[in-house]
């Protein structure tokens, strides 16, 4: 199909009408330019994707008003009318001449306008793109008390420019690619050329070019397509709505993948260390940030361990608890008719239902769900003696802990793992939980993110470079003189503190 344009404008228009048959939002505006010869031209675009005012003012008006063009013949006398329009007449900033149909049709579909001139087998692509988009708003998922408040939108152009604003360096590369046979989704790879590890970059490029799918609607689909182990419940790429987080990651030697139509930018590679970092950590005092990190790590364990531990301790090893605590637990469970595992599964199921209902419905009804779910069911269940109050507390703490983890997908992975731990604890008690930890550790150790061990820096990579300073705790900014080691950055030094370092 990739044929050349025809000489005759009639044939070209017929071709476009054929290709865009039944597309009623296609608009063809025909013009006749010039006083003497009345050269036929036409503009082709799709209604809604373009900025019409811009087109009217800077293309149509220019063509009809300019004195120079009125006296032109078809072939012109110095240059052809086509060249003259391109070079002298149109006011638009971005114009390209194309001779083949495929790129032209892609451009029209992306919101560019095609200008055809009679007797010329070429088309001019005028950049008039203005897809409907919302303005820059504060991110919904990663709010900060202190720090920038701009968040990504659905437009790739706006997103890449927000990142560029933070890295004013020619070595920041923005490589545009397309994925999706039908959706032809734009995506941009962003990285700093002299920091990023070439092997990592090749790997990302290789995986993206291997994709053959009809549509990529969101960055999450791309993430699933290129991550190392798509069967794992844990995310092997990070996603964020915050341009500052992306810029920071790029400075660390990681690669950002911006996908059109998605406000979530992907970052590769991701490790257990990076998934626990939040951008707020870098805007508050390092002492506070370290404290918060500590509680976050604690939250990670509270996310999946207390429930199974409760089941294991009450059912198998009450002797491990101090005597006072045993009496308390026994007294609180005295009326409960179920074994601990049933009680736990019951409450966890309820909690998952409340969470799902609350996520789908927001606003006033959401509050109702919170009250009915949290207060009434919890209170009634305890008073009716179906579950023990201790179980309610454990489920509540577990649920709160899921929101402490900065990465939603990461905490969701542990939420899934939790159910496995419940089963193991129900069958094998504390030993079952230990087995669960063994399998979990094995799984995490087996995972890679674009060839980087997922368990970095806890499994050895990056320890020598001091990556623990920015994972377990968050050291003062003065201590981050080197880029983290897990990305194998080419340029290692981040900060010079005195003359000696230079």
């Amino acid at each position, binding site marked *: 199909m990739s044929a050349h344009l025809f000489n005759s404008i009639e044939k070209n228009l017929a071709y476009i009408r054929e290709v865009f048959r039944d597309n009623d939002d296609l608009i063809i505006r025909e013009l006749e330019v010039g006083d003497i010869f009345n050269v036929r031209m036409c503009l082709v675009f799709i209604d809604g994707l373009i900025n019409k005012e811009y087109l009217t003012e800077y293309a149509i008006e220019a063509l009809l008003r300019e004195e120079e063009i009125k006296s032109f013949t078809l072939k012109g006398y110095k240059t052809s009318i086509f060249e003259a329009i391109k070079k002298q007449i149109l006011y638009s900033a971005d114009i390209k001449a194309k001779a083949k149909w495929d790129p032209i049709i892609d451009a029209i579909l992306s919101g560019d306008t095609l200008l055809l001139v009679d007797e010329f087998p070429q088309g001019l692509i005028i950049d008039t793109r203005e897809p409907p988009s919302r303005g820059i708003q504060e991110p919904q998922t990663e709010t900060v008390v202190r720090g920038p408040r701009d968040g990504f939108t659905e437009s790739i152009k706006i997103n890449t420019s927000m990142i560029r604003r933070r890295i004013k360096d020619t070595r920041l590369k923005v490589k545009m690619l397309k994925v999706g046979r039908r959706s032809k989704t734009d995506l941009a790879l962003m990285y700093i050329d002299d920091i990023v590890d070439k092997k990592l970059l090749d790997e990302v490029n290789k995986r993206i070019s291997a994709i053959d799918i009809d549509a990529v609607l969101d960055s999450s689909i791309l993430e699933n397509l290129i991550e190392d182990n798509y069967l794992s419940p844990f995310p092997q790429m990070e996603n964020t709505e915050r341009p500052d987080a992306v810029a920071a990651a790029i400075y660390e030697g990681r690669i950002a993948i911006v996908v059109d139509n998605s406000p979530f930018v992907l970052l590769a590679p991701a490790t257990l260390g990076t998934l626990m970092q939040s951008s707020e950590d870098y805007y508050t005092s390092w002492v506070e940030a370290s404290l918060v990190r500590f509680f976050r790590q604690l939250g990670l364990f509270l996310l999946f361990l207390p429930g199974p531990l409760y089941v294991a301790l009450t059912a*198998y090893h009450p002797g491990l608890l101090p005597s006072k*605590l045993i009496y308390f637990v026994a007294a609180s469970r005295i009326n409960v008719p179920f074994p601990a595992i049933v009680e736990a599964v019951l409450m966890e199921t309820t909690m998952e239902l409340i969470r799902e209902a609350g996520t789908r419905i927001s606003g006033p009804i959401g509050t109702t769900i919170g009250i009915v779910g949290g207060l009434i069911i919890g209170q009634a269940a305890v008073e009716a003696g179906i579950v023990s109050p201790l179980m309610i507390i454990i489920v509540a703490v577990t649920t709160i802990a899921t929101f402490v983890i900065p990465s939603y997908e990461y905490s969701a992975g542990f939420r899934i793992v939790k159910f496995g731990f419940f089963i193991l604890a129900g069958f*094998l008690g*504390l030993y079952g939980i*230990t087995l669960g930890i063994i399998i979990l550790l*094995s799984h995490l150790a*087996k995972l890679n993110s674009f060839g980087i061990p997922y*368990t970095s820096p*806890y*499994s050895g990579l990056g320890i020598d470079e001091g990556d623990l300073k920015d994972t377990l705790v968050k050291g003062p900014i003065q201590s981050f003189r080197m880029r983290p080691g897990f990305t194998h950055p080419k340029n290692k030094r981040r900060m010079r503190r005195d003359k000696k370092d230079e």
Partner: protein
Amino acid sequence: MNKDIKISNIQIRALIVSTIIGIGVLGLPNQLAVAMEKDGWIAIILSGLLTIPVILVINQIFKDNPGKDFFEIGESNLGKILFTICLIIYLAYYLAVGAYISRVLGEIIKGFLLLETPLGLITFTFIVSIAYLVVSEIDIIARISYMTYGLTIGFALILILLAIPGADLTNILPMIQSDIRQLPEGIKVALFSFAGFEVLLFAIPFAEDKKRLTKTSISGIVIVIVLYLVLFLVTLTQLSIQQIKSDPFPLLMVAKLINLPGYFLQNLDGLVTAIWVIIIFSTMASVYYSSSKILSKIFRAKSHKASVLILIPVIYFLAFLPKNVIQINNIMSNVVIYLAMIVIFLIPFILFMVGRIKRRIRQ
């Protein structure tokens, strides 16, 4: 040899520490006390130092044959038939150790945590869980080792800190009271608790930084010596020598005696057992990995995944071959210990010497 597999030096150190520290650490104070009373620490230091020449030899073997892995070196130095016999000895040793670990783990879990669960179920679930890790390559096991290495050291530190309030230092004294003739028996016991560093045979070919490797591997052994020493002394300060002699797992007894401040948790023995399972896990992982790798090499299979699956029932069966703990201990101290000496000390030396002699002849 797969060139994509890379292990960093700190991971190798961790691999040594986590592989060595395993099943032995719980019972070591008991065995040493039986052999040498309070002077067990001499045996720990001496046998620790005895392993260092072996480590130097193993390192030298790989320096003499750069770019080759253990199997390639063995085959070119000893020839196919002789080396296959060596591999079978290795396999027998590893399978015995693997079965021993699984069985003792089962017995301890049954004794301390799950009184009514069938022993077979505990052992079987343990082997299967580890099989999940072992189907992957040694770099993944090195990552796990690094994590359990941190856990082991942290855990030992916490145990020591908690033990300080109840420590009776006079228990350690008087030192050097034992008969010198008891020393060989003590060293025999202690030496076996250092078994595990032979994992270097499988790890060194994949090391990233080969220059500092010897230093790293020796530092690993030093860490183990220090840990063993400290744990032995902590046990001495907590329990009387008679108690240590009569309890097969004195460290668990120590944990039982410790009360966390505020009495939030009592009877730490259950918790210690649970955490100790994770420490055992890395030991078992290297043992299981080594045995499945050797099995696949004997049958010239490309991947060791199939041997991992085949070995699940084999290890399980071997674990239940002895009828009771006494039989297990008999087999261990009469057969496996000597097998260990051959595998750990003799074969690396033979490999090294034959390699050197062959080189001489060629020149």
